[in-house]
């Protein structure tokens, strides 16, 4: 006999109790780094940055540490140190990298939320409404047969480049994977005696789904959402890098690298700094995901 759904979820969430979590470096360190990144994203204007879209043809392709001048809002010039150098259009790479944190984190969070929300809804329907299962899962199989990055690239071509288009294009390929996960949980839970008891007691289906089925999906979904977030940050940078993502003047890590491609041989710092930022961010999210998976859902451990 399994325990009631809520108790079980609360147990697995309770395993994340603060004091025991603080002992685990695989959770504490990446969380701390991500928190710092969130703070950087919020505080970007006050971190010694200048306007990340400001073009200055007189200071193109400067190496890191170059001391030059920058235009202030009132049109006057002020001395400024370009910690990470400038790109081929004379924009300050440090400012662009700092502001770029915003785009990456927003895309990661939005894609994780959007794909989880839609995946959850579709997956619950597929798992619970018997006649729809075959149809929905065949559709998802078809969608999964298209390599994700390719699908995202093709989808962004459909509308004007922008944050919303990029988020949607990255979310759609992720949805089928969430659907599969939710469906498999629902299929195993619906046979439980407490679900049968709830049906016998006349619980309406929507309430049944929310009260008994949904809580069982929470733990695996949190883990899945973390990995979706990591992959979304990577795919966003790839789309921007290929020139099909967020408009090039917007400071995003992928865009900085796209702008730096042409002069890479002479000025590798254009790619180095944003590259490190992406690697660190995604690494933290991935480590966090692995650690949470091991804690919340030991059964998933075997999966790659």
């Amino acid at each position, binding site marked *: 006999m399994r325990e009631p759904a809520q108790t079980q979820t609360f147990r697995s969430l309770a395993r994340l109790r603060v004091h025991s979590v603080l002992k685990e470096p695989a959770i504490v360190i990446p969380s701390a780094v991500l928190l710092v990144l969130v703070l950087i994203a919020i505080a970007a204007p006050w971190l010694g940055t200048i306007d990340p879209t400001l073009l200055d043809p007189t200071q193109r392709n400067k190496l890191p540490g170059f001391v030059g001048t920058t235009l202030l809002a009132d049109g006057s010039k002020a001395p400024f140190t370009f910690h990470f150098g400038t790109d081929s259009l004379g924009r300050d790479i440090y400012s662009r990298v700092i502001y770029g944190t915003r785009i990456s984190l927003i895309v990661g969070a939005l894609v994780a939320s959007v794909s989880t929300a839609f995946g959850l809804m579709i997956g619950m329907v597929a798992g619970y409404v018997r006649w729809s299962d075959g149809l929905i899962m065949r559709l998802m199989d078809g969608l999964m047969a298209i390599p994700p*990055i390719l699908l995202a*690239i093709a989808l962004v*071509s459909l509308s004007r480049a922008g944050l919303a288009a990029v988020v949607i294009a990255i979310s759609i390929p992720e949805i089928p994977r969430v659907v599969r996960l939710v469906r498999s949980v629902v299929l195993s839970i619906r046979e439980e005696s407490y679900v049968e008891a709830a049906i016998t007691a006349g619980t309406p289906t929507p309430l049944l789904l929310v009260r008994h089925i949904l809580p069982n999906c929470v733990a695996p979904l949190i883990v899945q959402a973390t990995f979706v977030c990591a992959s979304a940050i990577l795919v966003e940078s*790839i789309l921007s*890098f*290929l020139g*099909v993502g967020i408009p090039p003047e917007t400071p995003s890590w992928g865009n900085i690298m796209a702008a730096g491609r042409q002069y890479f041989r002479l000025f590798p710092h254009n790619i180095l700094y944003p590259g490190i930022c*992406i690697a660190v961010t995604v690494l933290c999210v991935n480590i966090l995901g692995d650690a949470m998976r091991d804690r919340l859902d030991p059964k998933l451990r075997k999966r790659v």
Partner: protein
Amino acid sequence: MFGYVLRRLVSTIPVMLIVAVFVFLMLRVGPHDPAAIIAGDNANADQIAQIRQQLGLDKPLLTQLFVWLSAILHGDFGESFFFKKKVVSLIADRIEPTLALAICTSILAVVIAVPLGVVAAMRRGSMVDRLVMGFSVLGFSVPVFVIGYVLIYIFAIKFPILPVQGYSRIADGFEPFIRSIILPSLTLAVVYVALIARMTRTSVLEVLGEDYIRTAYARGLTPLQVLVRHALPNAAVPIVTVIGLGVALLIGGVVVTESVFAIPGIGRLTVDAVLARDFPTIQAIILLFSFIYVMINLIIDVSYTLLDPRIRY
């Protein structure tokens, strides 16, 4: 066995059909009017209407779908809006570099990843194990193009032993071909190695806990003999599965890697086609890659029977 292969083949038809319908709807329901794209920016409404009629875009959607599907089944993917060539010949011109890159990467990845995973599993908890696991998490976290540029910087700029960019056809000599394909393959292999090494480790670890492994050791077999005769054959199925699933990563990576290394393959064609909103080309590429992906995984499913005699269909 034959019946199983046939059943699996038939089961790919609905999947590919859904991909095809999806790809079709992408263009027809999307916000872009193909006739307007072909006509160009200076065309007037009459010219656009004329092109629309030529392409059959004025017919009902369902009719268009069937016309399009039947053309595809006859190998006609239409004409590229941008290159003004048949899409089929466009892809045929570009297939060699992509195929070479994919094959070299797969070989490289398997040759590196499987031994790494095995060593990590055999020496569980050791430095090697930690390095392999650390590398595999890192491999999933660095964008492909950053890896590419780092490799270019080291092996083509700091120590100029390999070409920075470009592709040399096999027909133009084997050595220049190999030299041009090393860095792109290495770049693309990183994420694939991460994936396969991780799965190999997990799978071998699981098998090493089995009774028959202990028995094999008790019979006096050396660790190598145990590995080759007992552990690897039993660990093979999940490893081969993940190699097949990784093909999706590989295809995504090809698009990026070809852009970094200026390789004139299908990956580059994809980016060019998307930038030019060249929908017939995009459609054909998605169909082609999805078909390849589905077929490779079908072959892998069928190969289970060869790898593991316990699996019978």
